């Protein structure tokens, strides 16, 4: 008979975004949005590709990993020591990931340029100017494989590629792996997409500029464990996910979906909105406002570092948990994270912040 599910705790995070590489930086001075190089009329929060920290990864990886992957590896590397300190067998460490598709050309820009120069021999030029391993930049699994090798994760795995909701999918998969005893710890990694025209061209409402969409570049990772930390404990208390189909009567479908997702997230601990110490969401979203009633809403990290796509949820968790109001606790505080993406995904997560046990 399967063992009963066990609680899962968030142990440590690693971030990288326009504000810096710590959760505290998200509470510091807000970086200014910049005009995007490829579309100066649009604003965003670009980030240079980082140099990988020494020790965990071979820095030559920078040749065959896209900038978004390098940001993610930068975060994963910084959780390596905390993971090692758990002293677990590699087979007991899960790895889940939320990684966007890569927009750069698979042959590489040098090959594209060479093909233009000799159009009569373009195929030969392509093969001659594309490094064999360059194609690995196409694959999200490459980034996961680098982490699995460098941080010795050989347990359950799951990868997701989507918009904002992929972060919750990866976090939920990691949580279940630990809660259901298939792993004792899990590394959850996520990255925002590189800032390229694809971000705007893929969705008509973004291409036409009708939505004030300010994307950012960044990554976020969390280490989860079944082992409760000594001090303040952050436990995953519930989550819910749903979808508002484009074909639906949008408002009524969205309300039904939101109600169901909120019920899923709050239900396991029988919570109501009045039990929440804080809600992190999009204050301007009227539909989310309908679901949240008069509950005050924090805007999360997005106004400071931009829309981070698949890494937005994991970044928001770190942002909220670094808030001074939760540094000392007398009793359990519940935080709700609620998001609705422009692609129709609705995601909710509830964290329980529990005071550390006294000896």
């Amino acid at each position, binding site marked *: 008979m399967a063992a009963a599910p066990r609680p899962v705790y968030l142990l440590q995070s690693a971030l990288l975004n326009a504000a810096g590489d710590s959760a505290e930086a998200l509470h510091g001075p807000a970086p200014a949005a910049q005009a995007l190089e490829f579309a100066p009329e649009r604003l965003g929060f670009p980030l240079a590709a980082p140099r990988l920290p020494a020790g965990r990864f071979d820095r030559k990886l920078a040749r065959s990993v896209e900038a978004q992957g390098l940001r993610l590896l930068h975060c994963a590397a910084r959780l390596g020591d905390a993971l090692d300190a758990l002293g677990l067998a*590699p087979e007991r460490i899960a790895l889940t990931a939320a990684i966007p*598709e890569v927009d750069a050309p698979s042959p590489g*820009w040098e090959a594209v340029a060479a093909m233009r120069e000799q159009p009569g021999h373009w195929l030969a030029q392509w093969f001659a100017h594309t490094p064999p391993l360059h194609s690995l930049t196409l694959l999200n699994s490459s980034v996961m494989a680098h982490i699995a*090798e460098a941080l010795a994760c050989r*347990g359950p795995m799951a990868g997701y590629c989507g918009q904002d909701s992929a972060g919750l999918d990866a976090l939920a998969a990691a949580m279940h792996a630990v809660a259901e005893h298939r792993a004792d710890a899990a590394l959850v990694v996520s990255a925002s997409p590189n800032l390229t025209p694809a971000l705007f061209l893929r969705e008509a409402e973004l291409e036409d500029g009708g939505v004030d969409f300010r994307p950012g570049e960044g990554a976020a990772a969390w280490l989860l464990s079944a082992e409760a930390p000594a001090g303040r404990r952050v436990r995953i208390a519930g989550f819910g996910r749903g979808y508002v*189909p484009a074909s639906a009567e949008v408002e009524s479908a969205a309300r039904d979906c939101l109600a169901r997702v909120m019920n899923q997230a709050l239900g396991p601990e029988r919570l109501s909105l009045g039990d929440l110490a804080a809600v992190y969401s999009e204050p301007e979203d009227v539909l989310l406002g309908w679901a949240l009633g008069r509950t005050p809403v924090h805007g999360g990290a997005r106004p400071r570092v931009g829309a981070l796509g698949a890494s937005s949820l994991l970044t928001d968790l770190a942002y909220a948990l670094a808030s001074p109001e939760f540094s000392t606790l007398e009793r359990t505080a519940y935080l709700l994270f609620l998001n609705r993406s422009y692609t129709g995904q609705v995601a909710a997560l509830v964290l329980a912040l529990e005071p550390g046990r006294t000896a």
Partner: protein
Amino acid sequence: MNPPRIVITGLGAVTGFGFEWQGLWSDMLRGRHCIRPWQPEGVSEGSFPVRYAAPVDWQRLPAYLRSHPALAGELERRTRFGWLAASQALADSRLGYAHWRDVAVLAASGAPQHSLDDMQLAFADGETAPSWKSVMRHAASVRGDASLRQSSDRLARVIADELGSAGPVMNASSACAGAAQAIGNAFHMLRRGECELALAGGADSVLNLDTLGALYLLGAASTETRRGEALCRPFDAGRSGLVAGEGGGFLMLETLEHALARGAKPYAEILGYGSSLDGYRLTAPEPEGRGASEAMAAALDDAGIAPERVDLVNAHGTSTPLNDRAETLAIKRVFARDQHYRQLSVAANKSQFGHLIAAAGAPELLVSALCCREDWVTPTLNLDEPDPDCDLDYTAHKARHRRVDIALSNSFGFGGLNTALVLGKYRSDAS
């Protein structure tokens, strides 16, 4: 309280064999394949080094599918295949319209197809260095059916939009393990009660200059020509690399209680799912097959099934020198007790319809479900001279009639991302 039983009640597959799973199944039992000479569009005959593949033949599209919305508008090939397969699975399940919004959608759709034409736009104004600004200036010329306008989760969303699904809607991404991961995730979600119905699977097409060129440069795709259409030969001493296919597969999964309440007839029961990471090397599987065996063992443990009860392993069987040897070792390790690996039938579906990359796990699980239902094992073609390191019973050449109560289906992704699913013959009296 026992977790709910999860059954498969609808099947859909698009492969080189056609657009219906019934044709796929009958062709496979007859020992046929759909691998043939192939060159990418826009390339002069014989100049592309990969010469064989298992493409989808649009001539085989049945008349009743010609007005399907997947064929209209601008979508990638993989999305068209996946949407068609999902619609077939939905129709096959006979699920009433009133239930459609309750269907969760979990899809895998592989790597995006980059358009070389789009990339040329980066130099369109005479730039000497590539410029995204130039691409943006020429946005009107960007193709509608390639990566700059199509996100990888488009497949899951078009299916969900057609159903009016209230979700969850998810896009799995774990290379060639993607569709198996999507199905495994759906199975676990159903078992936990997160949803009552799920349409899960995947679609992919690497049969284009860009993606198959990348696989060629990596050394993964076979360029041999002397074998002709018999190029895909899993576990054979003469295997030389993968032979790509394209298409998609989807399965309708639901709790048994839900299925019986609406009068659905299960094809098979999903019993367990497991995954693992090699953590070994990006470009090669762990040579002893340890990661693969961890995934198989995890799936059997999840199912509560002893290895000795397994009758069939539907292998990943890529026809690459490294995978097939490592997978054989992995099977031997998992089924070592009493040398049960000697009793197993092993099959490699890729010898018949090629490697569907991110989608591979879906049609292969579909085939495994039919093996359980019909008590047949599909053949591994072209296994003329077994590799001495590959010494299992791979069901060479011809399909075999044998009882299949429990089947295990393997899908391993590039970089050492491993999955396994355990299926059981549907029995109405099982507890």
